[in-house]
């Protein structure tokens, strides 16, 4: 399963919009490809061109062996014929249909006997049985989002396009959505394109990351690579520095809004206090994301500190970048003293769990 895209489109200068030109080329295999960049960079337009909602000026879109668009050969399939599932940023469940009817609407092109089974399958798979008879307005945001994804999958698409699906969801619901997406990535052998301007989402979900800026892809690669080796200063500014830690949940205390996490850095394990992690269980192995500028360095052990070995320190424009063994990066606002031993402090509120491993 492979989606190959090379599209360009110029949106003329209008009364309410400055002119914009999109020119991108990428290929997405099965797995999650994250389109990351600031708003207005052309991420959503790219999805629209692939889905067939708009027509590129030139280029080619190839999904497996099917040509969806080819400017030279004058091929431009209708959205109906593209086998691309689409989940929009805004809630797009048909408000006048129940959850079940929404799913049934998507199943109508399937053989009659298969329809009911397929709808029921999705209701079970996405835990929608309790709310199947309700209108979208009467179910929770998380259930609506699950239903949107289920509805897009009922047609057995060859690619799934998700346009900022986490917008407007609070933290527990986002975690739940990521869980669903990561499961889908394992189950489905299709490319999932995920548009976001949230770096944490990109890092947690992405197998591949495309960095968008002003209608161009300025860097492509695995999130880890992009984060550790930004291709340009612009990308570096966009991604900042984000540390990714593997952790195991040792304890959870919703009452005091705390958790205990076992973190391993470079083979050495240590325990940290974190925030309460809704939707997670004790013993879960999770991926923790924390920004380099949220960490602090000390010369002595203390609360929520772990020992680390400094490998390199780099002078940046307004800060020091401290690189530790194991790939951990800390951005300090001023040059710290030369400690003999280094300890990194992880403030609990800076530890974000976004997806299970």
């Amino acid at each position, binding site marked *: 399963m492979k989606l190959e895209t090379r599209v360009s489109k110029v949106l003329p200068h209008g009364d309410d919009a400055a002119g914009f030109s999109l020119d991108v080329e990428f290929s997405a295999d099965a797995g999650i490809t994250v389109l990351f960049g600031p708003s207005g960079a052309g991420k959503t337009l790219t999805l629209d061109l692939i*889905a*067939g*909602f708009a027509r590129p000026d030139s280029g080619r879109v190839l999904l497996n062996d099917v040509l969806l668009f080819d400017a030279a050969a004058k091929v431009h399939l*209708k*959205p*109906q014929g*593209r086998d*691309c*599932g*689409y989940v*929009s940023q*805004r809630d*797009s469940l*048909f*408000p*006048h249909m129940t959850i079940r009817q929404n799913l049934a*609407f*998507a199943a*109508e*092109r399937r053989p009659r006997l298969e329809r009911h089974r397929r709808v029921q399958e999705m209701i079970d798979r996405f835990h929608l049985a309790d709310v199947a008879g309700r209108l979208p307005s009467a179910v929770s945001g998380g259930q609506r989002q699950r239903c949107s994804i289920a*509805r*897009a999958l*009922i*047609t057995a698409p060859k690619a799934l*396009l998700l346009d900022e699906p986490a917008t407007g969801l609070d933290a527990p619901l986002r975690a739940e959505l990521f869980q669903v997406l990561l499961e889908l990535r394992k189950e489905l052998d299709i490319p999932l394109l995920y548009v976001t301007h949230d770096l944490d989402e990109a890092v947690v979900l992405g197998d591949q990351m495309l960095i968008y800026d002003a209608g161009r892809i300025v860097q492509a690669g695995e999130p880890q690579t992009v984060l550790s080796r930004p291709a340009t200063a612009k990308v570096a500014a966009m991604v900042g520095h984000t540390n990714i830690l593997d952790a195991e949940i040792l304890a959870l205390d919703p009452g005091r809004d705390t958790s205990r996490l076992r973190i391993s850095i470079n083979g050495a394990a240590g325990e940290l206090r974190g925030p309460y992690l809704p939707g997670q269980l004790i013993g879960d192995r999770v991926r923790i994301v924390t920004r380099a500028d949220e960490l602090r360095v000390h010369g002595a052990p203390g609360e929520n500190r772990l020992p680390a070995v400094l490998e390199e320190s780099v002078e940046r424009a307004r800060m020091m970048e401290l690189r530790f063994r194991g790939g951990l990066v800390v951005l300090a606002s001023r040059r710290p003293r030369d400690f003999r031993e280094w300890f990194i402090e992880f403030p609990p509120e800076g530890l974000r769990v976004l997806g299970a491993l």
Partner: protein
Amino acid sequence: MSSFTFPLLLSLKIAGISTVFSLVAGLWLAWLLANRAFPGKELLDAVVTLPLIFPPTVLGYYLLVLLSRTSPLGHVYESVFGVPLVFTWPAAVVAATIHAIPLLVKSARAGFEQTDPVFARTARSLGANEWRIFWRVTLPLARRAVMAAGVIAFARSLGDFGATLMIAGDIPFRTQTAAIAIYDAVESNQTRLAAALTLVLSAVTLAIVYTANRIEHRHAR
């Protein structure tokens, strides 16, 4: 039937039938104008609006020329139904339909344009064809606007005078609608009949417009 009830019932019959016709034509035109880009769209929009602005006699004259026994359309009608169209009550249906379409199109188009395009896009990605999207998604979502548009079309058809008079004539107990009967009654000094017809017609129209506003109001909430 009396010269009081006949025109009223005829008017209601004509308005009912022409509402159905204008809904069919008007919803299609409204959908076209709201969803499609094509050359001549502005012109079509203008043409659809014309019956709203034309003096009724001008509209009636056009229809008379278009549908007279010697015209191609009139000829086709006569060879299918065996009777000429002009100066019969179906001619009044034509006049009322043409009269009702502009308002219906404007109101329904606004309704279609208010629905979030994300629903139609999503439906397309789910494989639904345009016909199914219209019936299952667009129309249900714009149903209040469309219902209000239908009600207004009915009221508009009920009140047509000039064009109906030109093309269907003023033949008592055959083509004389309530609006025309009122004019006749005044002309022949039957003021009580004119007053009674006016009262009933006003009450019916008021009820209809009130209903339409109620529907629209709930739509707005």
